[in-house]
């Protein structure tokens, strides 16, 4: 029982960043029908911004702010420079463009900074644990879970209780109908990218606290589990994206801890991918399907 709880906390901690990225992917998919392969790049830019700010000796709370601001600005810049002129383009063109942006950002950091990772300091408490009865919990996991929970509640309130959120949900269902109601297309899409960037920025803080380094290709690396999470949950279903992210994290923890023997722990990723393949065989539309009731 204790071990289960321990792994659950570990898995939720791991899955939190996936969930936040998946949620952002889902928001962008909703308004643009785009699977945004560039959605990891706000994390990359956030990492290098943190690296730069850390050189000036900024404390971690300031680095967190830097990361979030950098991610939001990057996401908005990607929308403005990459997608604004492609409003009328087909889905495949958008997909290729997003991939191109991801490759460009990676190449940029490789050429102008370095191909080798750049280190920065981690928060002092990052590897500390607290004992709660028989449980030994990492402070890091608790921080991650708390921050994610707050972020998700905030996002939920924004989507459910504000006019902007209502317009986003309406646009996700029928973009043209939302425009016919008077919603401004550019603002809606920029808003979705800003919100997705904010979520990516928070995910970046959670990831960077532990990693303590910036690398050119970290965006695509980090994006992959987020993308999987979004697809597992059913693309475009925002609750699904969150569930998918957490499920993926817990599955990884469980595989590592119990299912695979120690000598095979390197195969965790492969095993999890196998599980996902099985999921798609039996439920190709994801955990929560996007199908909705339709009556004439």
């Amino acid at each position, binding site marked *: 029982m204790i071990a289960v709880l321990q792994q659950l906390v570990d898995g939720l901690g791991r899955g939190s960043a996936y969930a936040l990225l998946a949620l952002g992917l889902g928001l962008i998919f909703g308004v643009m029908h785009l699977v945004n392969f560039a959605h990891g790049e706000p994390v990359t830019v956030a990492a290098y911004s943190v690296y730069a700010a850390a050189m000036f000796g900024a404390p971690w709370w300031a680095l967190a702010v830097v990361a979030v601001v950098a991610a939001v600005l990057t996401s908005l810049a990607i929308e403005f420079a990459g997608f604004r002129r492609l409003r009328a383009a087909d889905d495949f063109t958008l997909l290729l463009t997003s991939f191109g942006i991801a490759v460009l950002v990676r190449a940029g950091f490789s050429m102008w900074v370095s191909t080798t990772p750049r280190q920065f300091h981690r928060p002092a408490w990052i590897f500390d644990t607290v004992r709660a009865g028989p449980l030994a919990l990492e402070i890091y996991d608790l921080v991650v879970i708390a921050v994610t929970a707050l972020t998700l509640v905030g996002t939920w309130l924004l989507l459910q209780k504000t*006019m902007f959120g*209502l*317009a986003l*949900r*309406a646009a996700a*269902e*029928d973009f*043209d*109908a*939302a*425009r*016919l*109601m*008077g*919603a*401004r*297309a550019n603002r809606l899409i920029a808003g979705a990218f800003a919100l997705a960037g904010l979520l990516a920025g928070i995910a970046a803080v959670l990831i960077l606290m532990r990693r303590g380094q910036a690398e050119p290709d970290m965006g695509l690396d980090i994006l992959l589990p987020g993308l999987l999470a979004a697809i597992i949950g059913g693309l475009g279903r925002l609750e699904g994206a969150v569930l998918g992210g957490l499920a993926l994290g817990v599955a990884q923890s469980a595989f590592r801890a119990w299912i695979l023997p120690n000598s095979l722990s390197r195969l965790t990723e492969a095993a999890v991918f196998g599980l996902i393949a099985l999921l798609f065989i039996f439920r190709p539309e994801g955990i929560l399907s996007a199908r*909705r*009731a*339709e*009556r*004439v």
Partner: protein
Amino acid sequence: MLRVAGVTARYGNITALRGVDLHVSEGELVCLIGPNGAGKTTLMSAVTGLLPVTAGRVLFEGEDVTRDSPDALLRKGLALVPERRRIFADLTVEENLLMGGVTVAPAERRRRLKEMEELFPVLAEKRTLHAGYLSGGQAQQLAIARALMSEPRLVLMDEPSLGLAPALVEVVFQLIQDLKKRGTTLLIVEQNAKKALAVADRAYMLRTGEIVDEASGQDLDRWADLFEAYVGG
């Protein structure tokens, strides 16, 4: 109020509209009829900016709005109740209405929501229901109410009676007449030509992307009889 002058538009590779001319004056109820595939919905899309106009001009209250986006046109007072209603099935009835008032200040939006719920008791009753669960007639009422939330001066309606049971068709046409009485200008596309002609001030007939005839006054009755003879109403 609305003038469509020589409008040509393409739908994919097909030229769906060829030099369409029509106008709607303030307070009028104008009806556009024609067979399937004549380009009626394409015309609605072209006027509201959903589909680019390749030649010709669209004027709204004297202003050239040919290149305006749908949201810009809505802000100027032109709303479309689209074909197949396109209500937001995942949103509640009330959220659909609020979305219709997305351009309006919050207090005013609340006031109009109340007004719509008085005008459409069914919608008030189902306020918290997801709109996907509404029946066809209720969904059509919601689509119209949603468009009215922005208090448009000109409402375009694309096939408001499509797929409705006869009793509900009556309800919808009654509603259209009420709107006209309230001073709203209307341009309506209808398959149900006989019903539409009975309430219209003027009518245009669209065939293979062109306006082939226009009628008003007594001619409307003649058209209605003709339709009855040829297509059974």
